[in-house]
């Protein structure tokens, strides 16, 4: 067939872009020549807003970044503020944060699993994944009344204690997830269509991935063991025993395997945190009006999508001088062009889905 470059527009209202993302594609018949991401449709000027709010008022706004993992955003921001202001968080609060953050990772990965399979055409996985995710959202609802934009972590600690009844409920939820996961794996792991659409698709080598700034499960799928929970443990992660699952080929299939294994590891962490939950306060004493002496910090956590960082500079008042968010989805999306080039046009949707982006945190 003769070479013929065709330009195609995908989005911004395309169902598989998980928000409002526009991709400008150049294709030669079925093969992708180039991809350009056009973002900003959801830009709300978060960083500008944060400069005009007090440190405490910023926390609920961080829910609206990665809205599938709002607790992780809360945690990332709050830890940066605590480092900046020198606030020591009680051990019990740190453990409760770990329970919440790992449950959030479970919810985020389960949602991703459903979306990814749905994008590729396996509708039933979406229903299984969301059923399991729902049980976790119920836990959040019981903990603080919210399910999606949770605002479940405060500067200095957590808003509520985790009592025995809730702990028992969490254990029950955790017991149910491996069974659901086994159902999903039975549908996908050796499914010929699933493997044709994922194995060897959207490959990226570890060196390229690091050069592009890729982090999180997508980087670990290339075999690079970079996990902030191990490398720079925060919030008592060094007190738990867990593995960092790695892939080998850096393709869509390995990203799937890595996230599935991370679900199992998160369950392990939550169980350990519940077993070892120390007695004590759930929050440090934090002044009602928090004023922070001039300083700057950059603090990162391992969010479900990758390394989430907050740079905060204080100026002695109750409002930050500047807050800059290092958004994992923003940086991960940058490498989509590298991953799609030379692949089939029909695989763009699968590759994009495998990155697990959320436009709320890309556009800020």
């Amino acid at each position, binding site marked *: 067939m003769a070479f013929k470059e065709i330009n195609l527009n995908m989005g911004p209202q395309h169902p598989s872009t998980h928000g409002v993302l526009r991709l400008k594609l150049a294709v030669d018949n079925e093969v992708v020549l180039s991809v350009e991401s056009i973002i900003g449709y959801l830009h709300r000027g978060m960083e500008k807003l944060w400069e005009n709010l007090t440190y405490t008022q910023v926390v609920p706004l961080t829910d609206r970044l990665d809205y599938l993992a709002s607790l992780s955003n809360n945690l990332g921001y709050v830890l940066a503020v605590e*480092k900046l202001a020198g606030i020591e968080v009680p051990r019990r609060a740190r453990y409760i944060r770990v329970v919440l953050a790992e449950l959030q990772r479970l919810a985020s990965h389960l949602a991703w699993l459903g979306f990814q399979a749905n994008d590729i055409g396996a509708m039933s996985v979406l229903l299984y994944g969301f059923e399991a995710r729902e049980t976790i959202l119920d836990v959040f609802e019981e903990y603080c009344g919210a399910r999606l934009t949770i605002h479940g972590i405060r500067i200095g600690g957590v808003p509520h204690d985790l009592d025995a009844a809730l702990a028992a409920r969490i254990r029950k939820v955790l017991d149910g997830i491996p069974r659901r996961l086994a159902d999903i794996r039975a549908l996908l792991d050796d499914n010929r269509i699933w493997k044709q659409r994922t194995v060897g698709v959207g490959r990226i080598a570890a060196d390229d991935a690091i050069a592009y*700034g890729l982090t999180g499960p997508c980087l670990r799928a290339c075999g690079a063991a970079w996990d902030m929970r191990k*490398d720079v443990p925060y919030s008592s992660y060094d007190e738990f025993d867990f593995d960092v699952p790695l892939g080998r080929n850096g393709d869509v299939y390995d990203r799937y395997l890595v996230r599935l294994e991370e679900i199992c590891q998160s369950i392990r962490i939550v169980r350990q945190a519940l077993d070892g939950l120390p007695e004590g306060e759930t929050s440090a004493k934090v002044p009602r009006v928090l004023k922070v002496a001039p300083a*700057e*910090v950059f603090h990162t956590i391992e969010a479900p999508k990758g390394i989430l960082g907050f740079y905060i500079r204080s100026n002695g008042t109750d409002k930050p001088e500047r807050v800059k968010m290092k958004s994992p989805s923003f940086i991960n999306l940058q490498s989509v062009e590298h991953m799609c080039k030379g692949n089939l046009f029909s695989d763009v949707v699968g590759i994009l889905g495998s990155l697990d982006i959320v436009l709320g945190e890309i556009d800020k």
Partner: protein
Amino acid sequence: MPDAAADRPELRPALDALSARFPGVVLSVGVEKGEITVRLGKAGLIPVLRSLKEEAGFNALEDIIVLDNLRTAGEGGKRFTVLYQLCRFPGADRVRLAVDVGEDEGLDSAVPVYRSADWAEREAFDMFGVRFEGHPGLRRIYMPDDFEGHPLRKDFPLEGRDGGV
């Protein structure tokens, strides 16, 4: 070099090598809350980035952060400070480079050294108007192409201009 790396001894060799190789470029090294900030003159930015990446192993550029010094710069101070947040994998040693740049000057683009600088520099340009010379396609990333002004500058009103965008 003074005892700036005192509480981060593992980074001392890299920092010593840096100030020995680039005398006059490295203006100061400070440690605050366990984080290292190296202040540079703007001419030395790219050689220092390249040296940190290729010789000291800082293989990841995590973020580029711009500060608007409009209210704090004082007489003769530069309008912006651009921060480069570098990280070394495996592990997670970090160092932050700080370069001051005036409103009508540009900075050399870091894209030839770190590919991940591409979108970060576009964001810095869009939000603050800092120009990066040699960037492969410096254009706005969030705001519409015909937007005027740079929203994160301190003199850009919070509520927008003329009733918003």
